[in-house]
């Protein structure tokens, strides 16, 4: 460590916010890979350009993905990052760990890799950051011994992730961690063996607050909702008010659907269930007094993704309401129908949302056997270019 200087990066060790530079330095004490990573990064800071090569596929036995190959473009200078692959290790649903499990992980990774991690990657994986081609297989083997399996990469179902859900949240309408666990086990093959035109992501947020950022970052977002009345504890409402809470200003007037009304005489908060669109606002600001309903299930959104290449998308309502009970057969059947159709029809690197955009949502619905409902759209079409199938019209007279 003393034979090199990283003056630019050293600046980023200052201050109170935890420093990734300090973390790399800690790892560099024992890992030459981490040390060269820091050196190469210093070069990037100086030159304002990255130093990783394009391309390079590496793998482990029995798996088609789960590893991102990475090679330095200045290997002579930094030989220990000549190969610096990451392993995407499937996280525990809800990101729950025990100290024991984490230590086991650290032991394996110290042995075979840089001792650096992303806890977690944006998709949800534990990212083991940097090892050599040679070390990869034994590393994965020993991870398997401690119960950690790889996640997804390439044209595969990607590692599934979710919000904390019923484990620690009063708003959970569905059992996000169980759903993710169940689907993850069910889809091991398509996660581990890329066989699709591109990635396919599923995330679960157990309520419309979307703490898993599912609607924007998953091809299929499973969002917990309810369809009966939200529950109001009038006693608790009165307690809030007694403490100076301004019910009209802070809740009633902010309800986007005007579903709430405060009966000052009866000191009662009333909700018109058919108006409520489950925006969560009242529940969020009065957690002690207002809760989600009892008839719970999920709204499924399809097509969320980032801008590349047709522009960003936030998932579109595909199923307004689906019951969510183990073993989640209805959900799995739908996922299979969607991915089968997508795999058969998509161009290379075409996400499901882009394919739906290309063929039309209505056509997609027909293929997967869902009925069009107004919940799917913000508004009906405003252009008159309606397609009619020959079967729908009479034979020309």
């Amino acid at each position, binding site marked *: 460590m003393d034979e090199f200087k990283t003056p630019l990066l050293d600046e980023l060790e200052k201050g109170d916010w935890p420093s990734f530079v300090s973390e790399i330095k800690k790892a560099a004490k024992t890992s030459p890979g981490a040390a060269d990573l820091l050196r190469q990064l210093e070069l990037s800071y100086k030159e304002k350009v990255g130093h990783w090569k394009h391309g390079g596929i590496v793998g482990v036995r029995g798996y088609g993905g789960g590893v991102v190959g990475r090679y330095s473009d200045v290997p002579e200078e930094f030989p220990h990052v000549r190969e610096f692959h990451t392993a995407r290790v499937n996280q525990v649903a809800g990101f729950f760990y025990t100290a024991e499990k984490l230590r086991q992980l650290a032991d394996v990774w110290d042995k075979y890799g840089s001792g650096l991690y992303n806890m977690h990657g944006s998709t949800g994986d534990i990212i083991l950051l940097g090892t050599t081609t040679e070390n990869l297989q034994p590393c994965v083997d020993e991870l398997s011994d401690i119960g950690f399996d790889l996640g997804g990469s390439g044209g595969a179902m990607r590692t599934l992730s979710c919000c904390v859900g019923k484990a620690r949240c009063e708003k959970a309408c569905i059992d996000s961690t169980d759903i993710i666990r169940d689907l993850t086990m069910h889809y091991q093959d398509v996660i581990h063996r890329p066989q699709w035109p591109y990635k396919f992501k599923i995330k679960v947020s157990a309520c*419309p607050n979307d703490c898993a950022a599912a*609607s924007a970052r998953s091809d299929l977002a499973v969002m917990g909702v309810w369809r009966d009345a939200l529950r109001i504890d009038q006693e608790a409402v009165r307690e809030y008010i007694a403490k100076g809470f301004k019910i009209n200003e802070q809740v009633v007037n902010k309800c986007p659907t005007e579903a709430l009304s405060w009966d000052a005489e009866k000191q009662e908060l009333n909700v018109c269930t058919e108006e409520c669109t489950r925006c969560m606002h009242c529940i969020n600001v009065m957690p002690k007094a207002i809760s989600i309903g009892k008839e719970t299930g999920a709204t499924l959104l399809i097509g969320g993704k980032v801008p590349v290449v047709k522009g960003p998308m936030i998932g579109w*309502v595909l199923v307004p309401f689906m019951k969510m009970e183990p073993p989640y057969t209805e959900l799995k059947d739908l996922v299979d129908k969607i991915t089968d159709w997508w795999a058969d029809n998509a161009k290379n690197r075409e996400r499901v949302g882009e394919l739906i955009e290309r063929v039309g949502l209505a056509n997609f619905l027909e293929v997967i056997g869902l009925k069009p409902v107004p919940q799917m759209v913000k508004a009906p079409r405003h252009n008159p270019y309606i397609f009619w199938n020959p079967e729908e019209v009479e034979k020309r007279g």
Partner: protein
Amino acid sequence: MARTDFGPPDFREMLPPVIKENYGQWKYHTVPRPGVLKHVSYSGAVLHSVRVASPRLVSSDFIRDISDIAEKYCDGFLRFTTRNNVEFLVSDEAKLQPLIDELDAKDYLIGGVGLSISNIVHTQGWIHCKSAVTDASGISKNIMEDLKDYFTGKIKVPSRLRIAVACCVNMCGACHCSDISIVGIHRTIPRVNDELASKICEIPTTIAACPTGAIRPNPKAKSVTINSEKCMMCGNCTAVCPAIKIMDPVNDGVSIWVGGKLSNSRKAPMFSKLAIPFIPNNPPYWPEVTDAVRHLVEVWASHAREGERMGEWIERIGWERFFKLTDLPFTNKHIDDFTHATTTFRSSTQFKF
């Protein structure tokens, strides 16, 4: 004789003295009775305008009759509105009631002002346009016959409601931004008369005219073929090549669109959106169309708040509620599949069950 480019008569010569004198000086207006506007100037001057319905397609007899009336009560001054009504411009208040009496006697319908349903903006239809899929005048007459009490002010509405009728998707009106629009549409793709096409069609121009790229050359027949999966039945190719025909009496008909507006009042202008994808042509009464329009008017009128245009009402309650309240089926046709389709999809768990 060879005089060209002299333009229309100067409007200044067509204005009654009260307007000339108070031009740009109007202070406010009231609606003293249905169909009548009273404009008051800063100077205190008053102008009454009496609005009557017109079929828009009128004869010289009609022109002469309204001219006579204008002469009798308005010193010869009158105007038309942007919705094709006639307005008699009364400077002398004493002549107002006699004018109204004569109009009543002659069966002119007075109305269309304020909280009412005014005349329909419509197009040529079978009466004069080669592209007409339906008859705009016929449909308009039937609808307004049915809604006349809304025009005359007998029945009140929460806000103005504007109806437009266009006989094809060229929409020579404001159909894309009306509270209720009726638009003629095709449902079958055009047929190509290969023999004729080989003689009179400019093949490259015809191919280029198709916005969806549905037209391919048919070199064997020296003609073109149309790909039924890509054709969106816009009729554009028929405007370019006379050997391509799209008219289909069995399957042509009309669609109904709702919720558009143009004024910037409260909300910005909005497009009309699809409510009913297809109703067959059923002349002379088009009863299904008339019923549908009346139904839409009634559901809106009984649910909207004071001052709420159709589109504002629907935005407030949501389209899912609109389809429920109107009991109209929501179909695959309602889901947009044109260029900006994805911007109409719902990216939220916020909706009503």
